[in-house]
């Protein structure tokens, strides 16, 4: 049988820090559901397992509540199996009661209790829904004792952190790393980690279908899982579903000549308009190059969906030419010299040195601009 494994949709997550692009990112998360639906149809996967955190929080607006349900309703040939995660854990009169009251599409199955559920004649689903944000016990333990008819593929569905494994999850909901083996599971579909990860051949984190942060999965994807039969090792492959790529990288530059290379690398990144990048630039530059860098970054930022440049570790070391650019002598040159001395003063605090550097950059840029105007 074939199933799609996904998790951590976190519908309703705010992206206010992206300004007017917030709505675009929110829409992208909904569009990812449609991508999954289409993928399921294409790959003839009847069931899509959503391993928790469908919603970003327990009290979304009604519109946010209904939007993913409607997207799933749009694929009647697909059965969506959903369990609550730590972001949307199941509590009485909580979000899932609201979902039920709102009218659950027929093809969407909420698994709010640890009760086996047959996925057609081939398999049985053992869900482990979260009833609290943070469970201290392993909610998948019941799967060890869960009875199922022989000949059925046993599939576990849970949300939490594999104990003793890399700590990439968000909440302390422990899951034994050998749960699949202990419970005789042919596949254990996990959620919580936003990056795709294989724990063992039968246990996987799918990652999020639409990336939502830096330093995590770059592009959203799901897992297509093929299980030949009970006891067979599942064949797991990734399928992209995300629209926007989130990348983080650090560049070390020490010379103006490095700027061309940096710009080239940035411009060569694929699909700039769908790229969110966090760039940290380290090293030292003279004032001219520093100003040049700002100008280049401004242009690249316009080409990208989003660019977040962190220049806090990029230090300014003005050259004589920089200082002469400000003036050969006189008041402003004296001021530049004083600021340079302060920026290099070991007795000054890092904040004071950084401020002096910024003031120097400001002096340089303003005098250069005024000269340009005069010219």
């Amino acid at each position: 049988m074939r199933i799609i494994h996904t998790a951590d949709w976190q519908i309703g997550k705010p992206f206010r820090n992206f300004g007017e692009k917030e709505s675009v990112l929110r829409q992208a998360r909904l569009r990812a559901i449609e991508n999954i639906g289409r993928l399921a149809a294409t790959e003839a996967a009847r069931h899509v397992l959503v391993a928790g955190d469908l919603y970003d929080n327990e009290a979304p607006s009604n519109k946010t509540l209904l939007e993913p349900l409607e997207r799933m309703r749009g694929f009647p040939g697909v059965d969506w199996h959903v369990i609550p995660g730590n972001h949307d854990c199941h509590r009485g009169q909580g979000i899932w009661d609201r979902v039920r009251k709102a009218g659950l599409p027929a093809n969407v199955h909420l698994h709010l209790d640890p009760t086996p559920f047959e996925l057609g004649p081939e398999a049985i689903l053992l869900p482990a829904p979260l009833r609290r944000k943070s469970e201290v016990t392993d909610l998948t333990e019941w799967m060890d004792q869960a009875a199922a008819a022989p000949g059925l593929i046993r599939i576990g569905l849970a949300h939490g952190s594999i104990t003793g494994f890399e700590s990439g999850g968000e909440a302390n909901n422990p899951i034994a790393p050998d749960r699949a083996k202990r419970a005789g599971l042919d596949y254990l579909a996990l959620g919580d980690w936003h990056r795709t990860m294989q724990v063992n051949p039968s246990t996987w984190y799918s990652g999020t279908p639409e990336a939502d942060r830096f330093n995590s999965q770059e592009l959203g994807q799901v897992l297509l899982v093929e299980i030949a039969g009970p006891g067979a090792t599942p064949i797991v492959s990734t399928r992209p579903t995300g629209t926007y790529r989130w990348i983080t990288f650090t560049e070390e530059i020490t010379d103006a000549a490095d700027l061309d290379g940096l710009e080239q690398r940035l411009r060569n990144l694929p699909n700039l308009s769908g790229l969110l990048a966090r760039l940290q630039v380290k090293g030292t530059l003279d004032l001219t190059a520093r100003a040049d860098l700002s100008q280049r970054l401004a242009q690249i930022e316009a080409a990208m969906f989003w660019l977040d440049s962190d220049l806090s570790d990029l230090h300014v070391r003005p050259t004589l030419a920089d200082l002469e650019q400000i003036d050969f002598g006189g008041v402003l040159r004296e001021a530049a010299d004083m600021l340079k001395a302060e920026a290099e003063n070991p007795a000054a605090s890092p904040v004071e040195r950084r401020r002096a550097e910024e003031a120097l950059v400001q002096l340089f840029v303003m005098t250069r601009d005024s000269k340009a105007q005069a010219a």
Partner: protein
Amino acid sequence: MKLTHVSVEGCGKFGTLTRIEGLGPGVNILSARNEAGKSTLFRAIRACLFERHSSTNKDISALATDGLSLPVTITVGFEKEGHHYQIRKSFLKSKAASLSCDGVEMARNAEADEEVWKLLGIEARSSRALDGAAYGILWVEQGRSFEVPEPSEGAKSVLNAVIQQEVGVLVGGERARLFLNGVKEDLARYLTDSGRPRVNGPLDAAAKETARLTGERLDVEARLATLNGKIDELARLRADYKAASDPETMRTLRDELKDAQRRLTEAEKSDAELTRLAGDERQAHERAEAQRERLDALKARAAAIDEQRLRLKELGARLAPLNEQEQAATKALQVAAAQKAGLDREAETLDSRESELQRLAALGVKLEQRGKLSQRLMLLEDFGRRAAGNDAALKAASVDEAALKALDAIENEERQIRAGMEAGAARVAIEARHGADVAVNGTAISGNAMRSVTEPLTIAVGTEVAITISPPPATLDTAMKQLAQQREKLQALLSRHGATSAAELRQLRTERLHLEEQARDLRAERTALLLKESLATEIAGLQAAIGEIDAEQRRVLPEGGVPLLAPEEFERQREEITESRNALRATRAAAEAQITAHQATLTSLATTRGTLGGQIAAIHAQLDGDLAVLPDDGREAMTAECANELSTRQTAHRITAAALAEKQAQAPAEGEADRLKARVERLSSAIDEQQKKAARLREGIARLEGEVQISGGDGLGEHAATLKLQHEMALAEEERLGERVEVLKLLRDTVDRCYARRQEELNAPLRRHLKPFLNDVFPQAEIELGESFAVAGLNRSGPGSELFGRLSLGTQEQVAVLVRLAMGAMICERGTDVPIILDDALVFSDDERIEQMFDAINRAGRNQQVIVLTCRSRSFASLGGKQLQII
């Protein structure tokens, strides 16, 4: 640039075309009376050069001639770099502008406006008022000449450009100033001049946004926490409700209750039966015991009757001998009583004899006292007679101390009168020589004699000669009268006291003193007599006491009665009586003792008889009672009947006790019913409470469901997440802006410090140009220049400088004009030839100082055009220069 001609029309008081004639290089003076329109012309020149022809601002409007509908037309001609330019503008109506160069029009309207500015080196601006640059500081309008020049930005630029040309670009003053202005302008967006965040500026807005988001976030998070709390509470209530409404639990409870109730009923029935049997047993036992007591009482009463009868016999035997003993005792008592009576009579006789003896003895004592009383009576009577004689003599002798003093006074007076007569009288010295027979007033004298003639003095010498010498008659009469008065007083005194002469009077006084001495002795004697009362009373008392003793004697010893006994006899008889009495007393005491003994015997006998009688009566009474209850003839029958009844009752008790014991053996354990009752109550209460609890929980769940639905449905969690992000962004933005401000402040302060260090260098060119002008008016003086060419003070060879604001108004104006002239010279030297216009300046200058100022103005006029407008023709006559005219 030099102005060459100016004409106006429809401008202020100049309704028709009016021109200024005679403008040329150097000093020009337009001297005209007040309200001649000088200032209007000044403003017209400014408007023509610096205002757009299309402008309708208030300055332009103010130029229009009242009552005319003409446009304000101004034409200004000027020469610059060898070319002659003319600008003509019409304002307000038929607006137009035309600029010509050397007679050829080169621009019109707006272009003409801006071309003029270009020629004058003024930066064109569209929105803000035009900055006149150097013209702003060198064209001084009326009333402004005493103000320190404060160059506009344009003027500063001009001045700095000039300075830069002089001191070289290395100082960089103008660039620094412009840069600083830029930084300050940027900083001013964030902060006020006092360094506080500018209201509604970016920093203030960011802080407000942060505060707003903080509040909103806290509020939403609190609401979210409340919602979460309610959801948790709801889950707990549901779990509780599930437990409380579990049907299996309720069924178990009800079954347990039913079973407990059944068992309780059985236990209660058993308890009731036991209670009844126990009552029967107790009653049977009590009846048997009562019968036993009744039988015992019958037996005890029979024994008591027998015993009482024995006792009566015994008491009768003891009562029989008591009568004989009582008769014997009564007889002995009577004998003793008779003896006692006889003894009492003898005693009375003795008492009578003793009383008689006592009376005689007392009389004897009183008679002895009578003698003493008689002696004292005689003594007192004698004293009384003597005291009476002394009193009578004292009364007769009336010459007291006062009379004697009166006598002495009369005699003294007389002596004084005579002494006076003698002192005033003639003195007659008589020498009776041996053998001479000389007599004075008949008394012979011998030898020398001296006489005063106080009365007629007759000196006889022998017999043949008798010489009488008399005092003056008046003197003599007066003295005689006084003497006669004294004699009358003496006579009266003597008469009053029964004396015939002064000597007798004095004798009487001596006798009285003797009587007074006697009286004092008598008083001492009286004291010695120890009189308790007056003498007469005392005498009367003595006489009475003596009388009473005499009467007592007559009564006790009547004539012919028993004479008084001698003391020895009296004593003997008294002792005899005493002995007789003692003997009687002893006999009587013995008799009394016998009487007492007999009476005690009789009393004892009576008591014994009473006691025995009482006991016998009591036994009879008891016996009668017992016999009434238990007569001798029915004693046996009653006892037998009572014993039978007792046997019957004891049998009945044994039966009931056996039945009770049997029931007790079958009954449940003690306290079982109480335990079951408590259990029933507990189970009933538990069921009831469980039902109530379920009802309460149902209610609570419904309430919480409603609340959760209301507060959770509006996307509170989503809102909270968004707010969290917004809040973090706001904090970051506030921090970023704060850092930006700090950077700008650092930049500003750094450039400021460097600029200040260079200030002196920047001021040097102006100082150099100022020096000759200053020497014209204030030789050896220095002006202290501050930032932006500000005048700080004037140093006139003293150790310190005088602050500009403290200088006199005249000096302030002179210094201000000199600084402007220096600025003009400096600008002019560097090729920017700007005319200097002074409108009604130097109004505060005295005659000497104004001449010096004229020198300075003429110095300026050597290199540039200076136009002076004044209404003070006479004062400015010596200025020199070209005289302008308004035509």
